[in-house]
């Protein structure tokens, strides 16, 4: 699953550790989700989305959608 976490973090000038502390997970978890290595649970996705005041679908999108958007 693709996501915009890195971009949103950069906009807020947050490190991975800061985001991890805010949502109560390890930095490794944020790192893995950000790189698309780990698909977050619905709860974690909600927690991340809440941090950026956005909806889940504005941050996460499936691989197919990501490929389509990139090719456009």
């Amino acid at each position, binding site marked *: 699953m693709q996501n915009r976490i890195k971009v949103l973090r950069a906009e807020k000038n947050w490190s991975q550790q800061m985001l991890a*502390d805010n949502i*109560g*997970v*390890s930095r*490794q*978890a944020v*790192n*893995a*989700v950000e*790189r698309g*290595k*780990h698909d*977050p*649970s619905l709860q*974690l996705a909600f927690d991340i989305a809440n941090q950026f005041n956005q909806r889940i679908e504005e941050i996460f999108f499936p691989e197919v959608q990501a490929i389509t958007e990139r090719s456009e």
Partner: protein
Amino acid sequence: MERSKQDVLFVKLFLTAMVIFLILIAVQTFTLELIVLPIWLKVVVTLMPVLPLIWAFFIFRARYRAFDEYMKALTGEAFLWTLGMLCFSSFIYGMLAMKFPMPPVELALVTPIVFGSHGLIVQLLIWKDNAESN
């Protein structure tokens, strides 16, 4: 903050269990060497060091339950590696032992090796994660 408090508590409890383990090993060794005991008491004294290891297991289980979902997955993968290495090494040893004379293996070393290997593999997986993100 809450997370680091949990980490500190885990380290304190785990180290306490390990210190008790070492003390009981010493008590076991000296007691069996120096005091004449009935068989049942010898068995009790011999098995005493197992208790802090069981406690350590429950301490680790509590820590595992407090992990976030990714650390649980990572820890699970490390257990899979540990289990795989243990199974294959014992299978290889067993196969060789059926056909060739093999040196005896100290079974009491299996638990500390499994604990140690698991911790090492978790750290390697975290290190690999960090390396990939840089």
